[in-house]
């Protein structure tokens, strides 16, 4: 689990890394820490897998691109092989195994609808399985800040 310092740091750095020359020094100053300490904590969190990434999250839809959720029903015996085939595409941004007949759910992120269609066609081609696409028709809410520090209201 997270140390109290790590939890505070992640709360602070959920999405507002300062756009300043030395952002980590500026965040460190807020906490009374050193720049080295902040950089060291973040490096350790990445290293240990607590963070998958530290940097900008792109919303490609703002530039004419799209994110499309898609799912497949993958035979259990081929699951590992199909995972490798699907994950090999750079268009696949995330991929999750889920408990359901549709047991593989992934998100395709592309700059154009044509690239998305091509990625789906390629996955169907290579795996011989149907891909069900679930394009967004409307977005109601995105981006939850999970409560990491003890005692904070859930989903604040």
């Amino acid at each position, binding site marked *: *689990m997270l140390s109290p310092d790590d939890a505070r740091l992640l709360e602070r750095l*959920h999405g507002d*890394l300062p756009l300043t020359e030395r952002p980590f020094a500026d965040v460190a100053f807020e906490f009374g820490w050193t720049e080295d300490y902040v950089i060291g904590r973040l490096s350790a969190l990445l290293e240990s897998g607590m963070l998958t990434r530290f940097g900008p999250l792109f919303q490609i839809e703002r530039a004419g691109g799209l994110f499309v959720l898609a799912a497949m029903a993958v035979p259990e015996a081929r699951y590992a092989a199909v995972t490798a085939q699907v994950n090999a595409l750079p268009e696949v941004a995330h991929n*999750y195994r889920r408990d359901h007949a549709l047991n593989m759910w992934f998100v395709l*992120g592309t700059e154009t609808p044509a690239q998305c269609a091509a990625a789906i066609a390629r996955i169907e081609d290579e795996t011989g399985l149907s891909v069900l696409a679930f394009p967004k*028709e409307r977005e109601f809410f995105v981006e939850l800040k999970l409560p990491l520090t003890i005692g904070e209201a859930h989903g604040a």
Partner: protein
Amino acid sequence: MALDDFDRALMTATQGGLPLVPRPYDAVGERLGVSGQQVRERLAQMLESGLIRRIGAVPNHYRLGFTANGMSVWDVDDALVDLLGERIGQLPGVSHCYRRPRHLPKASPGRSQDAESPSGGDGVQCTPTGGIYWPYNLFAMLHGRSRAEVEQQAVQLHELLGSACRGHDILYSTAILKKTGLRLRQSQES
């Protein structure tokens, strides 16, 4: 608003993460042959336009103790789904909430389900579903420290939807197979 060459170069340079060094923006600029200030200005523009949602930590929910991640899916009356979706998006614990198309088997005359299941989303072609019947048109991601916590959240959602909801399911994730975020293709297929 299409991407220009600098946008694309900047996205490609940072989509895997920022360098964890004292001057990360300068480091990115160095790789691109521009100043750190130019990098910061363009990132600020991207935040402004919404092309960047946020710059910060992308947590692994599982490793942080949120081991129960349920994609809750709901079959909601088309006439009410947008109104109710807005409300559900406000509930604590809901991270992503979308209306998406249903995938129903090709309607055959006289099937009883036709009466209660309008066709999928606006003009979306229903692909062959391989026998999978997917009546759900509202998706809400739920996160909890246990499945019981997620079930509790689902009860709340269900109450909010009331009689507009004709069925629901929760699909728990059991493994992250990949989580890299967006990766632009290096070579642009023309």
